[in-house]
């Protein structure tokens, strides 16, 4: 870190940004024209206390490494996003959430401390009780407050590497919302997979899944003697040259419809944890399915009273613009945390996948941004590539306070990113 502090001070590159595994969908992990510091070698586990599941690890440690080491020992991540290929520092910087936010909050709810290398070359220990301002600016701070050298988090004990899953079909958006609401009271994990191609009375039709960590005695006999052993899953890779035209509204529509009608309602299905939490990780480079032009993910949250109208507006606006989202994922959020730029608000969050087709996707994204802003919601920065500084300011009232705290931590503006400049969080050089 001393060497890193020297590099920062000598400023050969103007500004720097830490980069973990680069899974952000937009420009959060890019620092165009300036310096990027890879955290790939800062990936070591430092301390673990089996009495309370407290783990100290370097910022570049991946969530997949943590699971690989600790699931067999009976520990899980209390909050995990939809991919395990992100670093803990990245998880803090985006304050990621999972399918259990309504119950457990976001990633930072289980972070008990972090070490931050600031713009003054100081290695600052922050937590809720020590330098809390720096802590809450760094949580969700998109890497703009400094380098997160290490993170201390609490893992959660589990009895098995398996999940007990219940599945319900919801015929339209109202049914989907009711199903998620029912889950708030009774399920640890819940998510609705929305058929983005369904229209009219079927708009918002979905498969809703509820999940719990399976207890050892809930496992079928053949799994009981090694409850913590997860099955090896062979990941497949999509080739570079996959023809993206295969995925179009007609083909996806057919697939979704067939999937929805064939998917029976089931209770108590036992599923391995990677299939439940990381279904897309099975297909390496799954984004290549969209072909050379790729895709865009759009994720926003709406406050409770605006959910129905907001979600309907997003789905209908997309359809009207000729840009049907193939897949939508809807989750309930509990109350917001204290991260100044943290994404989750109480309500529901919808994530949509759009093929990157046609001209001027940015204009379309801005229309969606307007809908979200109008309904008092906001857009998730880890996925955003199009928000304007003005719309961002309207969505994130914590931005002013964030800029103040950041100024104290990084007076010379050594840390920056393309996203930070686009949203007006940092000054452009």
């Amino acid at each position: 870190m001393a060497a890193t502090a020297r590099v920062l001070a000598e400023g050969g590159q103007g500004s720097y940004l830490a980069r973990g595994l680069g899974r952000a969908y937009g420009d959060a992990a890019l620092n165009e024209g300036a310096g990027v510091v890879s955290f790939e070698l800062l990936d070591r586990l430092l301390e673990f206390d089996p009495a309370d599941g407290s783990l100290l690890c370097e910022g570049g440690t991946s969530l997949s490494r943590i699971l690989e080491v600790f699931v067999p020992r009976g520990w899980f991540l209390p909050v995990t996003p939809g991919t395990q290929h992100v670093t803990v520092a990245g998880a803090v910087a985006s304050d990621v959430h999972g399918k259990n936010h309504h119950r457990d909050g976001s990633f930072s709810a289980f972070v008990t401390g972090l070490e931050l290398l600031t713009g003054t070359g100081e290695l600052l220990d922050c937590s809720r009780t020590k330098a809390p301002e720096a802590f809450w600016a760094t949580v969700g701070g998109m890497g703009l407050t400094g380098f997160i050298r290490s993170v201390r988090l609490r893992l959660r004990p589990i009895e098995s590497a398996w999940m007990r899953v219940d599945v319900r079909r919801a015929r339209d958006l109202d049914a989907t919302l009711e199903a998620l609401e029912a889950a708030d009271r009774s399920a640890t994990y819940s998510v609705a997979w929305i058929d983005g191609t369904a229209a009219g009375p079927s708009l918002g039709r979905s498969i809703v899944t509820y999940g719990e960590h399976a207890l050892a005695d809930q496992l079928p006999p053949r799994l009981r003697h090694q409850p913590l052993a997860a099955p090896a899953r062979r990941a497949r890779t999509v080739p570079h040259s996959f023809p993206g035209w295969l995925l179009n509204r007609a083909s996806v529509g057919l697939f979704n419809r067939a999937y929805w009608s064939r998917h029976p309602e089931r209770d108590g299905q036992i599923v391995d944890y990677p299939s439940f939490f990381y279904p897309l990780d099975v297909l390496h480079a799954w984004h290549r399915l969209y072909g050379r032009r790729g895709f865009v993910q759009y994720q926003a949250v709406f406050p409770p009273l605006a959910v129905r109208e907001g979600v309907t507006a997003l789905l209908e606006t997309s359809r009207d613009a000729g840009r049907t989202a193939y897949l939508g994922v809807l989750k309930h959020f509990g109350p917001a945390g204290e991260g100044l730029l943290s994404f989750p608000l109480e309500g529901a969050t919808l994530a949509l996948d759009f093929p990157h087709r046609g001209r001027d996707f940015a204009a379309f994204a801005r229309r969606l941004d307007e809908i979200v802003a109008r309904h008092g919601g906001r857009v998730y920065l880890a996925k955003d590539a199009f928000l304007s500084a003005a719309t961002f300011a309207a969505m994130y009232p914590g931005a002013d306070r964030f800029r103040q705290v950041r100024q104290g931590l990084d007076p010379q503006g050594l840390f920056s990113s393309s996203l930070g400049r686009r949203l007006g969080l940092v000054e452009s050089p």
Partner: protein
Amino acid sequence: MKGTVLIVGATSGIGRALAVRLAASGAGLVLAGRNTDELERTASDCRLRFGVPVAIQAFEARNFAQHGHFYESCERAAPEGLDGVILCIGYLGPTDEGPFDDGEAARTLDVNFVGCVSVLERAARAMAARRHGFLCVVSSVAGDRIRRGRFLYGVAKAALNRFAEAQRAALAGTGVRVLLVKPGPVDTRMTYGLPGMALMASPEQVAGDIHRALRAGETIVYTPWFWRWIMALIKMVPEPIFRRLRL
């Protein structure tokens, strides 16, 4: 792998990759180098991930007076003595332009050759007395045919190669094996940002090749494998032509 292995230069890219690789195979470790804070981080990681005992020792290649004490401490840190020693220390200085810099020259020869001899000779004696163990020396293809530009590095590696060969002969019949490793360019601190690096290997690939060669009882391994053939060709080039090739 059973027993305890000493890795000298364990904060280097190859050293660190080897530590993880050997710990994953069940070996206990003693990690030696200058930056004990870095060593402790790698040690914690190996202990937590693989449940093997890992000790650390400070080591300075040029501090010859301390080498005896250093080696004894390493032996004591291993419950049943060391089963193997791997040397991953090296120093690649600036290119040869400009006036002769005797500080640089001394450093290049000391870290790449003399310091290694000092450690390996002590290890050889200790292991021969127990009639068991291995020595592994990470040299370089640069020692096979010396290029212009940083030729003292090549010279030191060439000397190291001869030394390994001589030690192997001296240890014949004692039950102690000697493995000489010749990597091509490896993506680590030593080569980061240098121009003209082709066919780079990752430290993990090199560590994998070393581990395999140790298990198979090999004597010389080029890593990646194709460097054996590239260097064989280069060694065949007649001197007058090689000089003009500006390789």
